[in-house]
C-alpha cells in the first residue's frame, strides 16, 4: 500500500537501505517495477542523494530507511535538507506498534529524534491512513517554505496480509496549514516605489529564488532596472554568474565588490534570502544606510536577524511577477544619473580588487597548482554547464567563487549545515536526476572520506560522475582559521601521511583514477577526465596547501571589512 501510494504520488526513485523493520516495504518494492530503488552504502548518503535529486529537479526527494540505526544514520542528511529548505520525504521503518516504548531491538523514537530538523512528521497508526499521510507528507514537504518530512511506519502497519480498500486522495486540505502564495499588493507597490527611487540599489538573491523557480523573473527585473545583483552561497545561479550586472557572491567569502555594494547601498531588495550570519557579518553594523525590502515565503524569516522596512510574505515567483508588472507599468523610472554613478563606483571596486577582472592570488613559489586555477579550468572544460556538487571547506568556497553558474539548480552544496560528506552522494542524486548531464563533485581529501563508500553505488547504477578532489593534505578550512586565529597551531587538522592512494582506491571500486601534480598537465588531464563520459573518474589534484580563501570578512565588523590576502585588508 505504501509503495503504491508513492507510485500514485509520482515518485520515480527512492534512495534507501533495507533492514528488519522495513522488510515488508522492501518486499513490496521487489514485486513491482514503477518505483525504482537506489541502494546506497550508508543511509546518510541516501538522504544527500535524494536531497540533491530534489535540488536538481525541483521535485521532492524520497528516502527509505529501516528503524534504529537506519533512522539515526539518516539524521545528518535530514538536518542538511532542513537547513537549506529542501523538500524531502523520509520513510523510516519502526518496530511493531505493540513493542513501541519497550526499547525493543532497533527501536529509536524517530519522530522525537528528528523533531527539531523536520518541517513535520507522521507516525502511522493505522494502515488505512497510509494514502492520506503520504499525500499530506509530499504536500507539506513541497509547499510554502519546503523542508523534510518524516513518516515513521511501524512494521505491523505494512503487513502484507492485512488488506484494505485503497484510494489515493487527489487533493489534501490541512486546515491548520495554508502556505503563503501572493504577496500583499500594497507592500509590493511600496517596494517598487522604493526601488525606483533608489540611488544605490542592490538585489540580494538567495536560495529561495532557486527553490521558488524565480530565476527568470529575477533576471528580467534586474535587467530592466539595470541594478547590480549579488547571490548568496545558496543562490548561485539564481542570476547568471557571467552577466555584467552580477557582482559575485556576498558574505564571509563573498567578493570585494559584492560586499562593498551591500555596505554602501541605500536600498536592498532581498529575495528568498535569510540574512544569515555568514552574510551579514555583525548585524548591528550591517548596511547602515539601506532601506530593506524582504520577500520571503516564510514569515518567520522576515525580520529574524535584520529588520525589514518593507516585508513581503509570498511565493517568490508570484511576488516577482507582480513587481515586474508594476515596474513595467510605472511612468517613473530610476534616476539614470544616479545609477550611472553607482555603476562607476562598482566598476572602480571591481578594478581595484575584483576577482573576475584579474587574478588576486599569487602562484605558489613551490610551483604547486593553485586551487582557484583548478576551478577555473573545470569551468572552462565543462563550458560552465555542469552540475557541480560540493563538500565543505576551502574547496567549496573556491568553487562558489570561481565556477560562474549561469543557470539555477546547477550548484548543489550544503550551505546551511555545512555537511562534509555531502558532495559525492549529492553528485549521485544529480546524475539520477539528469542521466545525460555532466556532473562534477568538487571535494577535498578530508570531506571525500566521509562518504567514500558511495563509489560502489556509482558502480552499481552506472553513475559516471567526476570527482575533482582538491587535495591540500589538510582540513584546509580548519587550518586557515588556525593560521588566522590560533597562531598556526594546527590542532588535528593534518593527517600525518595517512591519506590513502586515491587513484588506487578509485581503481579498487572499478573506476578511473587520475593524479595531477603539475600545473602544465592540469587542463589536459581534466579534458581526459571529462572525455570518459561513461566512467567515474577520480581526479586527485595536488594543490598548494598554504593557500587561504579570500576575501574573508573580519569577524565582528561590517560587510565592507575584509581580508583581501594574507597581508592586505580593507
Amino acid at each position: 500500500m505504501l509503495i503504491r501510494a508513492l507510485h500514485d504520488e509520482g515518485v520515480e526513485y527512492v534512495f534507501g537501505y533495507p533492514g528488519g523493520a522495513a522488510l515488508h516495504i522492501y518486499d513490496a518494492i521487489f514485486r513491482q517495477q514503477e518505483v525504482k530503488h537506489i541502494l546506497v552504502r550508508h543511509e546518510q548518503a541516501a538522504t544527500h542523494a535524494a536531497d540533491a535529486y530534489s535540488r536538481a529537479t525541483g521535485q521532492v526527494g524520497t528516502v527509505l530507511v529501516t528503524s534504529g540505526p537506519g533512522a539515526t544514520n539518516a539524521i545528518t542528511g535530514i538536518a542538511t535538507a532542513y537547513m537549506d529548505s529542501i523538500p524531502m520525504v523520509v520513510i523510516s521503518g519502526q518496530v511493531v506498534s505493540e513493542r513501541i516504548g519497550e526499547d525493543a531491538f532497533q527501536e529509536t523514537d524517530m519522530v522525537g529524534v528528528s523533531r527539531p530538523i523536520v518541517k513535520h512528521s507522521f507516525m502511522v497508526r493505522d494502515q488505512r491512513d497510509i494514502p492520506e499521510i503520504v499525500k499530506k507528507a509530499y504536500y507539506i514537504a513541497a509547499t510554502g517554505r519546503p523542508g523534510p518530512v518524516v513518516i515513521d511506519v511501524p512494521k505491523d502497519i505494512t503487513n502484507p496480509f492485512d488488506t484494505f480498500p485503497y484510494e489515493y486522495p487527489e487533493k489534501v486540505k490541512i486546515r491548520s496549514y495554508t502556505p503563503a502564495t501572493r504577496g500583499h499588493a500594497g507592500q509590493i507597490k511600496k517596494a517598487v516605489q522604493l526601488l525606483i527611487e533608489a540611488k544605490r540599489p542592490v538585489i540580494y538573491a538567495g536560495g529561495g529564488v532557486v527553490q521558488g523557480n524565480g530565476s527568470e523573473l529575477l533576471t528580467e527585473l534586474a535587467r530592466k532596472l539595470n541594478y547590480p545583483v549579488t547571490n548568496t552561497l545558496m543562490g548561485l545561479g539564481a542570476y547568471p554568474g557571467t552577466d555584467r550586472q552580477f557582482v559575485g557572491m556576498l558574505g564571509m567569502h563573498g567578493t570585494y565588490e559584492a560586499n562593498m555594494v551591500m555596505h554602501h547601498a541605500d536600498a536592498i531588495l532581498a529575495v528568498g534570502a535569510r540574512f544569515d550570519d555568514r552574510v551579514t557579518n555583525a548585524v548591528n553594523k550591517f548596511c547602515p544606510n539601506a532601506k530593506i525590502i524582504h520577500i520571503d515565503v516564510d514569515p518567520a524569516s522576515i525580520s529574524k536577524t535584520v529588520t525589514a522596512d518593507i516585508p513581503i510574505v509570498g511565493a517568490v515567483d508570484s511576488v516577482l511577477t507582480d513587481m515586474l508588472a508594476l515596474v513595467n507599468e510605472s511612468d517613473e523610472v530610476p534616476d539614470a544619473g544616479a545609477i550611472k554613478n553607482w555603476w562607476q563606483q562598482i566598476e572602480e571596486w571591481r578594478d581595484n580588487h575584483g576577482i573576475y577582472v584579474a587574478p588576486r592570488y599569487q602562484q605558489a613559489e613551490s610551483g604547486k597548482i593553485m586551487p582557484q586555477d583548478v576551478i577555473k579550468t573545470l569551468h572552462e572544460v565543462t563550458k560552465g554547464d555542469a552540475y557541480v556538487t560540493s563538500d565543505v571547506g576551502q574547496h567549496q568556497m573556491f568553487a562558489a567563487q570561481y565556477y560562474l553558474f549561469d543557470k539555477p539548480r546547477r550548484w548543489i552544496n550544503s550551505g546551511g549545515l555545512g555537511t562534509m560528506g555531502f558532495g559525492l552522494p549529492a553528485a549521485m542524486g544529480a546524475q539520477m536526476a539528469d542521466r545525460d548531464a555532466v556532473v562534477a563533485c568538487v571535494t577535498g581529501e578530508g570531506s571525500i572520506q566521509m562518504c567514500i563508500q558511495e563509489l560502489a553505488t556509482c558502480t552499481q547504477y552506472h553513475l559516471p560522475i567526476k570527482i575533482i578532489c582538491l587535495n591540500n593534505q589538510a582540513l584546509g578550512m580548519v587550518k586557515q582559521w588556525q593560521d588566522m586565529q590560533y597562531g598556526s597551531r594546527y590542532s588535528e587538522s593534518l593527517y600525518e601521511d595517512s591519506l590513502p592512494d586515491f587513484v588506487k582506491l578509485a581503481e579498487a571500486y572499478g573506476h578511473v583514477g587520475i593524479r595531477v601534480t603539475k600545473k602544465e598537465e592540469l587542463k589536459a588531464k581534466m579534458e581526459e577526465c571529462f572525455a570518459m563520459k561513461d566512467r567515474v573518474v577520480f581526479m586527485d589534484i595536488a594543490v598548494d596547501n598554504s593557500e587561504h580563501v579570500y576575501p574573508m570578512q573580519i569577524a565582528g565588523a561590517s560587510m565592507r571589512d575584509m581580508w583581501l590576502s594574507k597581508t592586505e585588508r580593507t
Partner: protein
Amino acid sequence: MRRIISVLMENEPGSLSRVVGLFSQRGYNIESLTVAPTEDETLSRLTLTTIGDDHKIEQITKHLNKLIDVVKLVDLTEGAHIEREVMLIKVKAAGAQRAEIKRCVDIFRGQIVDVTASLYIIQITGTSDKLDAFLQAVGDASILEVVRSGVSGIARGEKVLSL
C-alpha cells in the same frame, strides 16, 4: 514583558511536544503552560505565558504559526482579556493560626476545601499576581505545598479564537 499566548491546535499525539520543543530549540522560555481539549475534541487549546520583548514575541508567534498542527493563535496581552489561574495550597493551621488564615482566605475570596486538625487545603482563583499576593500574605512558614494550574486566558468582548 510578560505575554499570554493562546494556541488552538490539532489534538494529535506529538503536537504538544512540537510546541515545547520549539521553545527549547530556539531558546525561548516558558513560564507556564496549560493544555486541554476543547468542546471540539479534535482541537486542543494551549495557553502559555512567556517573557520577551516585541521582537522575541513576534518570532515566537511566527514560529508557532509555522507548526503544521497549530490552527490559530492569539497574543491575549495585545488586547483586553481575562486571565485566571487556580491554586491549591496546603498550609499549617493550628491554634491561633486557624482564624488568621481563615480571614486571609476570605479577603482573597478563596475557599477552604479540606480540613484536618492541623492543616487546611485552600483553593484560590485569580490572576497570577493575586495568587502571588496570597502566598505572601500567608507567609512561607505556614506553607506546606503549592500547586498552580498555570494561566488560562480568554479575550474580552466579541473576539473569539475558534476555527
